[in-house]
């Protein structure tokens, strides 16, 4: 593999997308999970439309956060197991580029479908039509941070038994700011400042994530 101007990221992403497409039934599970979790809340808190409309944005966000966790365990694990990671390093590929490619793929294949499916869950929960736009905006802006934090946790837990549970334990506390500001964007009163801060947290997560994930991968390959 030759590293071009983008450090080979484009090629890596294309490879990842092909792999995900080859096992596309696996990707659908996260979407089904997302809808199921969102539809559990009405069972738990009752079907009153006012209550559901008030907490709809929060439900969508929590469901999306949980659904994003599902595919993280397999983010680096297969490549570490079958030696692909080592091959990439031997061929001069930087692990940072690998981490960025994984983040992009995770976002494209897990987070973006969730965002696209959000109008369905928002309608199910009876979220007022005015907040749909801001809810989607918040998710679009916030989910890259989730992919980044998730990739760090996934890289740190490569080769760990029952890594999936551990990933959740590591990701969820770190995702608190994204959740707070993301839900805040859909709040008519706080929307403006929440949007700015959500941008800040996402940018910071994207800036730190690739290096931390690459450091984690380096540890895993020693």
């Amino acid at each position: 593999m030759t590293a071009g101007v983008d450090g080979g990221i484009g090629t890596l992403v294309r490879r990842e997308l092909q792999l995900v497409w080859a096992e596309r039934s696996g990707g659908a599970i996260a979407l089904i999970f997302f809808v199921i979790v969102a539809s559990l809340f009405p069972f738990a808190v009752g079907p009153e439309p006012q209550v559901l409309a008030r907490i709809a944005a929060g439900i969508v966000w929590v469901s999306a956060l949980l659904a994003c966790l599902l595919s993280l365990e397999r983010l680096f694990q297969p490549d570490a197991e079958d030696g692909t990671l080592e091959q990439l390093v031997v061929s001069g590929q930087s692990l940072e580029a690998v981490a960025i490619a994984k983040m992009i793929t995770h976002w494209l294949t897990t987070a973006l479908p969730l965002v696209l499916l959000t109008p369905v869950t928002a309608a199910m929960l009876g979220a007022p039509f005015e907040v749909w736009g801001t809810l989607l905006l918040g998710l679009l802006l916030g989910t890259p941070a989730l992919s980044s934090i998730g990739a760090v946790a996934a890289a740190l837990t490569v080769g760990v038994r029952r890594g999936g549970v551990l990933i959740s334990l590591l990701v969820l506390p770190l995702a608190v700011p994204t959740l707070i500001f993301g839900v805040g964007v859909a709040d008519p009163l706080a929307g403006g400042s929440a949007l700015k801060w959500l941008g800040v947290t996402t940018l910071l997560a994207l800036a730190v994530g690739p290096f931390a994930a690459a450091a984690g991968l380096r540890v895993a390959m020693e």
Partner: protein
Amino acid sequence: MFAAFATGLYYALVASPIDYLQRDTVRIMYVHVPAAWMALGSYTTIAIASLVSIVWRHPLADVCAKAAAPIGAVFTAVCLVTGSLWGKPTWGTWWQWDARMTSVLVLLFIYLGYMALWSAFDDRQRAARAAAILALVGAINLPIIKFSVDWWNTLHQPASVFRSGGPTIHPDMLTPLLIMALAYMLFFVTTLLMRMRAELASQRLEIAAERRAMALEGVQ
């Protein structure tokens, strides 16, 4: 350490004046506030040790970070429990979703995740490196979490000791508070050193066991 605890507790429980609003429950403060300080102090210790471990690869830094984590988690838990006990008589609820309690709760989660990562690996070296990276990521995230939670909800009283213009707390209460803080810090250092010694001893035991196993293999 014991002397500091004895003086601090005497001042805190007997000699300090009672609050005209909160009566005797104000004495919980002397246990609660230093615990909160040390919860953050322990995490700072872990973060610095992790940085040292990553930059200079000093093995003792890993031992220090690993030893500090459970102590910090206990400080955090003590802070939450005493805060809850304090909240019942003063606010009327065990738990308020206000900014500070919530960020301390998230801090406890981060401690637990950090400790879980340490114990997830069989190989000590790998565990140390992975945990160090996590500790630094957590250290970058902590101010953001604190800020986001503050933004989300501010219900707690504003900070009353460390702020420009000097402390607003009365000296009669500040003195025992500071003595208690000193006692907590000494406790932290003492237990940290004890835990580090125990950790080193267990490493030595492990190496000795490995050597014995290898020697036995050589005999056969």
